[in-house]
């Protein structure tokens, strides 16, 4: 008995350790992350003092009534947001990642062939193409894919009809694990909303709708500075996008409620970041008046609303849209803007991208470095946003199918490398960073699945 107990406690200890993301508490991350978080806090505080606006306040009764009335058309509002600025943009975050150093890393005084030529200097373990082929086996040349084998030239009897039939069966059985396996080959458009909900374990119960209504009440009652940041972000990004501007009102309804949702705080148990803290006015230092700000602990950055926008194509009922987004955030998206050594964390994705490029497209990588166009400087923004706003929506949804199917964000780094591979000929001819950016500015015509398939399975290595 004793033996089994100690076996189990060892296994549990190991699992807990892995769940904590073993290196989340590593010294280097704590230091880098600590100073980055402090910068964000300072930025927000200085905005408060400059604009003489409190972080949070109770909304006057008249304003509450007005907001309730125009809840479904907040986009028509044109508040003066000129003085607000985003707390940070992806490129600021990239600078922090570039400066991460491993305290125990010694690569000698002289440059050797093992020196990192890319921007990321932390030696994390990333997969190479043979390992990726094994990991993403269902994307292989011999397996049917939506995004490739459902094109108009291919008769639907060959793959598409059967795939749809299987999808309907999976939904009928309400089998979440089967859905996750199934969606690796892509989801039919008609089934996607239900499949994602099944995989994310979202079912709209009456209490979920009530919960959303309670969040809405919180938005009405309290006015947060973060709300203005959200407004500004939506106006700057989604509203300017041809595909997403129609969903502007939905975005406010989701993001304002998201900021008030304290259940999001639980994801900080496995996130290396910590939620910002504040004290009720006049009670500075008194722990019983300490609160988190914003209530969900997440400060939005420039482009944050693009995590929500694609979901608006799938879900039209606000509380369901909200639940789906929240689950996607606490499972995946938070890893794209926090520092950790997790394989799906943004640091690993950046290193995976750079390593793939350096290993399999060495000439291109070297050329771009020589002209001062480090590839990561161009691809970083794609990965941080999970390609939202850069790809056509149908392609983006096919990509996010695979994120759900493989429960990993590594596909973002592979796609980024595949895009560079696809445009390699043009890129070899450019002579400046600006010209390289121009070659890669428009991804809206790209077909995601063929690119991934060719890069992983059809490139001679």
């Amino acid at each position: 008995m004793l033996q089994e107990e100690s076996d189990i406690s060892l296994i549990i200890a190991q699992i807990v350790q892995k769940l904590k993301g073993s290196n989340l508490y590593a010294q280097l991350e704590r230091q880098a992350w600590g100073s980055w978080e402090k910068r964000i806090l300072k930025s927000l505080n200085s905005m408060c003092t400059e604009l003489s606006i409190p972080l949070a306040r109770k909304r006057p009764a008249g304003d509450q009534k007005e907001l309730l009335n125009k809840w479904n058309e907040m986009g028509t509002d044109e508040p003066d947001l000129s003085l607000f600025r985003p707390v940070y943009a992806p490129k600021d975050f990239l600078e922090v990642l570039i400066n991460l150093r491993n305290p125990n890393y010694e690569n000698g005084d002289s440059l050797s062939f093992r020196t990192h030529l890319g921007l990321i200097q932390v030696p994390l373990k990333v997969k190479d193409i043979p390992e990726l082929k094994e990991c993403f086996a269902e994307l292989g040349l011999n397996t049917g894919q939506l995004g490739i084998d459902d094109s108009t030239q291919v008769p639907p009897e060959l793959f598409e009809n059967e795939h749809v039939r299987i999808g309907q069966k999976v939904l009928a059985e309400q089998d979440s694990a089967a859905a996750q396996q199934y969606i690796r080959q892509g989801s039919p458009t008609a089934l996607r909303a239900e499949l994602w909900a099944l995989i994310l374990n979202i079912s709209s119960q009456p209490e979920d709708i009530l919960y959303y209504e309670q969040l809405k009440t919180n938005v009405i009652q309290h006015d947060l500075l973060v709300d203005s940041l959200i407004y500004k972000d939506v106006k700057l990004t989604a509203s300017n996008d041809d595909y997403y501007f129609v969903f502007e009102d939905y975005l406010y309804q989701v993001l304002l409620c998201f900021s008030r949702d304290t259940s999001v705080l639980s994801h900080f148990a496995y996130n290396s970041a910590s939620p910002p803290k504040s004290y009720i006015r006049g009670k500075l230092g008194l722990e019983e008046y300490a609160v988190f700000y914003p209530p969900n602990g997440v400060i939005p950055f420039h482009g944050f609303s693009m995590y929500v926008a694609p979901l608006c194509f799938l879900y039209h009922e606000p509380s369901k849209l909200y639940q789906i987004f929240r689950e996607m955030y606490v499972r995946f998206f938070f890893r794209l803007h926090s520092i950790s050594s997790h394989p799906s964390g943004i640091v690993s994705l950046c290193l995976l991208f750079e390593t793939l490029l350096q290993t399999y497209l060495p000439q291109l990588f070297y050329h771009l470095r020589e002209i001062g166009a480090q590839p990561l400087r161009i691809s970083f923004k794609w990965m941080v946003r999970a390609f939202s706003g850069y790809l056509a929506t149908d392609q983006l949804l096919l990509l996010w199918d695979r994120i759900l199917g493989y429960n990993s964000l590594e596909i973002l780094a592979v796609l980024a490398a595949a895009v560079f591979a696809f445009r390699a000929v043009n890129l070899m001819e450019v002579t400046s960073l600006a010209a390289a950016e121009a070659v890669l500015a428009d991804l809206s015509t790209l077909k995601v699945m063929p690119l991934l398939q060719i890069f992983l399975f059809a490139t001679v290595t």
Partner: protein
Amino acid sequence: MSRVSVPCHVKGTVALQVGDVRTSHGRPGVLVIDVTFPNVAPFELQEITFKNYYTAFLSIRVRQHTSMHTPAKWVTCLRDYCLMPDPHSEEGAQEYVSLFKHQSPSMTFPKWLSHPVPCEQPVPLLEGLPDPSRVSSEVQQMWALTEMIRASHTSTRIGRFDVDGCYDLNLLSYT
């Protein structure tokens, strides 16, 4: 069974080098840490816990006295136990590690007394695939544990973020 930590004295690390001369270029890959248990009555060691810092492999050797008349013997109880699957990357580099008695050949560690060990046999550490029935019973017990945790967890469905209805804040705190 309650667990009590045993006071021990951990000496500084000593690098193992070939030859007498300390070269400034050579960076030895093997370091030795001596741990002694002064002034402690005979005890049964159950577990060793430590935090790793970029060590890839660990070996543990124990010096045991046999009877009065034979000299003390060094016995290996752990050889090349892998702490970092890839020494050149981060995984496992700063993890907390617990090593249990059952991972070494069954022995107790009374203070300088011994159980005779037939011959020095390094423990087969990489056991290959575990026994399926054992794994399934362990998984079942783990599942039971998680169910217990889930049942006892009081889910406050709608969390309050304000204090008595008040959420007036001026600035963020840096501490």
